């Protein structure tokens, strides 16, 4: 849609992104370590939300189990780190588990859509949680795995912040590229009409499977980053709540929007970690906010707000809703 209004809107977007990027780079020089840590958490959470957003935005598939894939990667890293393996082996193990998890997610969900996809991914997420919770000889059970350390080069909080920022920028650019590619176009086609895509000769399940694996890989990256952030992993990282929060972030920021996950993650993390210091009933704030955004939504509260501010009627018809 951006291509239609090439001039003004894209210019504004560019300026906003530039300002944000400069602010992000300057942040560690002006803010205290606590706020830099929170910013790192925002970026890492936004990455997980981005992986959900990719499926939701392009393919119209809403996953309620992505934290399971992220946790698989996290546990792979944590377990091999506890076994005394080197960095390459740790990352290899994380990648292996991510692939296994995403392939399983993909295989069981590729023939579903809509609410069935949601239920299947929810179930897969619960299986991941169950394994983390019960297989205590490997995962440490409810206690989780502690004592994981970041690589030497990232050990300082600000080093890690820049690393996560770089990963986030690269991932966001890659996602934009993917969305604009023929693959992304095919996914949107599937979202809008599966039957038409099938009659055009596309293998819908194969595309859904590929999309799930790609999205899973990104979730795996987020999983590794979150474990490095906390230097700890526990079943809570694969819980239903973690998956649901990722989806909440996506919805808050606007499904399918490039910076939606970042906005959503900022709001959620700030309410959860910062506002909760000052306000007892912070879960109420989050809940009310979510309800309001869902009511207002259709294609994201942020866009609507922007339109209000610019006092402009939507110039294009609202995005087609996914066909269930």
């Amino acid at each position, binding site marked *: 849609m951006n291509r239609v209004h090439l001039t003004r809107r894209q210019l504004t977007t560019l300026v906003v992104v530039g300002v944000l990027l400069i602010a992000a780079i300057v942040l560690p020089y002006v803010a205290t370590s*606590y706020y830099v840590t929170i910013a790192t958490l925002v970026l890492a959470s936004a990455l997980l939300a981005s992986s959900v957003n990719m499926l939701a935005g392009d393919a119209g598939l809403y996953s309620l189990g992505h934290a399971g894939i992220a946790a698989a990667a996290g546990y792979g890293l944590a377990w091999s780190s506890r076994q005394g393996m080197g960095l390459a082996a740790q990352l290899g193990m994380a990648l292996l588990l991510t692939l296994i998890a995403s392939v399983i997610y993909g295989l069981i969900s590729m023939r579903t859509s809509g609410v069935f996809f949601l239920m299947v991914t929810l179930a897969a997420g619960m299986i991941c949680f169950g394994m983390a919770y019960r297989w205590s000889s490997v995962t440490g059970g409810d206690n989780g795995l502690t004592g994981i350390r970041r690589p030497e080069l990232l050990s300082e909080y600000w080093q890690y912040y820049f690393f996560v920022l770089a990963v986030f920028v690269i991932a966001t650019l890659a996602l934009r590229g993917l969305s604009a590619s023929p693959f992304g176009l095919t996914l949107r086609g599937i979202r809008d009409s599966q039957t038409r895509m099938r009659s055009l000769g596309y293998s819908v399940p194969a595309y859904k499977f590929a999309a799930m694996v790609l999205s899973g890989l990104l979730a795996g990256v987020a999983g590794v980053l979150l474990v490095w952030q906390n230097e700890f992993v526990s079943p809570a990282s694969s819980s239903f709540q973690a998956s649901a929060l990722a989806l909440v972030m996506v919805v808050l920021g606007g499904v399918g929007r490039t910076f939606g996950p970042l906005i959503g993650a900022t709001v959620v993390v700030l309410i959860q970690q910062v506002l909760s210091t000052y306000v007892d009933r*912070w879960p109420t704030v989050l809940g009310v906010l979510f309800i309001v955004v869902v009511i207002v939504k259709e294609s994201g509260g942020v866009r609507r707000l922007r339109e209000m501010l610019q006092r402009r009627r939507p110039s294009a018809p609202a995005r087609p809703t996914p066909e269930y």
Partner: protein
Amino acid sequence: MRSTQRRGLRFALATTVAVAGLVVAGCAPSSSLSDDGGGGDASTGGEVFKVGVLAPMTGFVSAIGTDLKQGWELYWEQNGDTVGVFTVETVLEDDASSPDTALAKATRLVTEEKVDAVVGPVLANQALAVADYLDQEGVVNLAQSSADDITQREFSPLVLRTGALAGSQTTFPGGQWAYDEGYRTAATLCVDYAFGWESCGGFVSAFVDAGGTVPLQLWYPGDATDLSTYVTQLVNADVDVIFAGTAGGTDSSNFLRSAADFGLLEKTPVLANCCTLDQAILEDVGDIALGIKSVAYYAEGAPQVADFVEAFEAKYGIIPSVYAFGAYATAQMLAATLAGLDEKVTGEELVAAIKSADLSDSPWGKVSFDDYNNLVAPVLVRDVVARDDGKLWNVEIGEFPDVSQFWTFDPEEFLASPPFSTTRTGQ
């Protein structure tokens, strides 16, 4: 055109609701204790000793958070926040019952508030994660969680468990007590995660070590709402005693109700862990709990905590739970230590000072610390009785003094074996 207008109206309405919601939530009283004017009298105490308290004020164990906060506040209210040359200042943070939030809040306490020590958190996974972080930062952690490994396989020199005993430490004496009562066979029912494994692990290893046998062990999932199938199996089991290790939530009430309904309580004696018969549960299930024995490190009706229980009841109108006791005892221990110091010391020195402080007034009774920073403390055998006013509480009917977290086993051998689980049950 018309639909867009309506949408705009709807949006404006929703925004108003959102803003109103934020305002209402924003007016909620702040939970920060430092706002209550607690740190006001800096005239006598020179140096501020800042303590961060991490408690679950929201989330699925929020009831514990309230208990913990009340226990902690009660001590400083009774004794004033000036100890020797120090003024003790508290910063309370809500850890939301989640390990990730607990870590973020611990980071805030250390980097923003620059606290000298952190009390809490309660849940096992939170406690281990926060302890690991604080250890790196050189900040002392006064642990309130019962997870065995805090002072065992994940032992760290700056972590002292002052507000609880280890999970299995409390139930070892249960196994010995059951054997001493003449029971020779036992069946167990424990919740199927780390806390339940530790509860059952302690009972079973001591019972088997003494010479008993455990032919039946059942585990139920933590979110099970109906325990009747498990209780029926226990009713049909031909054993001398049942050990129940529940998590202290609705599962405990459900177990007690099923046990009463299916006649288990009349048929076979039941011995429970601490939390099955904690105050919240007693209030919930009422008289069916009468006469059930349990093992714990705290009994509301025990003479050594009478002053604390009386003061707590006078202030909050409820009998204090085990978590309120843990926080109160921690505050007492910290105050006893600070009284003996003339200036701020490093984390290691503070730990050494607490370990060597005079803890004779402690509501714990006679306690000391072992080499792994865990308390060697009395464990009580308790019985549920009704007070004169009809309220139920636990009274002490037996005591095992100086119980170590390794019971009678050799620490090194104990630590070399894996933690308790459904595969390592202590048999």
